[in-house]
């Protein structure tokens, strides 16, 4: 079979910044709540939206993520991205997590055991 969507082979890694909700509607995998106000960041799921490149405009995008792998199909530009991703926890969540650990010695122990 030949390529349907032109493959941008140089696309290697995506960095996600997820906002609230466990990184997407409860994080796809359920967005497990680890503490009041702090949820796991999990991007698993099906996503739709827009891709933008400076100077090139926008294109509709279908993306699916699963445990570190992702596929994104950009039909308008005839492009397809596949690779691995990492999730950046927003600074506000990092700060809340640090505060929680400082205030709760038991949570510190749990975090150490989990690390």
């Amino acid at each position, binding site marked *: 079979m030949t390529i349907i969507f032109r*493959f941008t082979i140089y696309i290697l890694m995506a960095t996600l910044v997820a906002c609230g909700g466990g990184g997407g509607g409860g994080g796809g995998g359920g967005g497990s709540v680890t503490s009041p106000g702090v949820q796991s960041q999990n991007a698993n799921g099906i996503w739709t939206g827009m891709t933008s490149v400076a100077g090139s405009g926008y294109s509709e995008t279908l993306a699916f993520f699963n445990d570190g792998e992702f596929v994104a199909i950009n039909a308008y530009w005839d492009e397809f991205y596949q690779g691995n991703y990492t999730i950046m926890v927003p600074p506000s969540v990092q700060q809340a997590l640090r505060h929680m650990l400082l205030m709760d010695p038991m949570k510190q122990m749990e975090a150490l055991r989990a690390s």
Partner: protein
Amino acid sequence: MSSEGTLRATVEGSLGTTLDVDLVYETAAYERSISLADLAGSWSGSVSGLSFAIIISPSGSFAASGSDGCSVAGELTIPQLDRNMIKGDLTISGFNCSVNGTYRGLAILANNLQANDTLFIGYSNNNYGFAYQADRN
């Protein structure tokens, strides 16, 4: 950013290209049960200059052939039965096929004219990548 269900993916390429992808989580599309039985059957698709056919067995094994002489064999698995996400490992081969090799990828089921009648598939290795839409026959 909304309180839930949005993300921005910054895609960095080795050539220095940077893309921003702003996405919204599709709850109904993803948070539903699928099974290998939903995948089983014959599928097909076409684009300019190429047509292909896929047969998926109830066990998840599949075979496909393209009008370009390439054949595909592989296995599909569903990591989580209550989520619409399919993983695939496959091998492309063929005497006149220029993209022989092993690949891995992801797929999802979608509803077009009826339930689970469309597959979106993407897979790649270090050399090539492909994305397809296939429709149930």
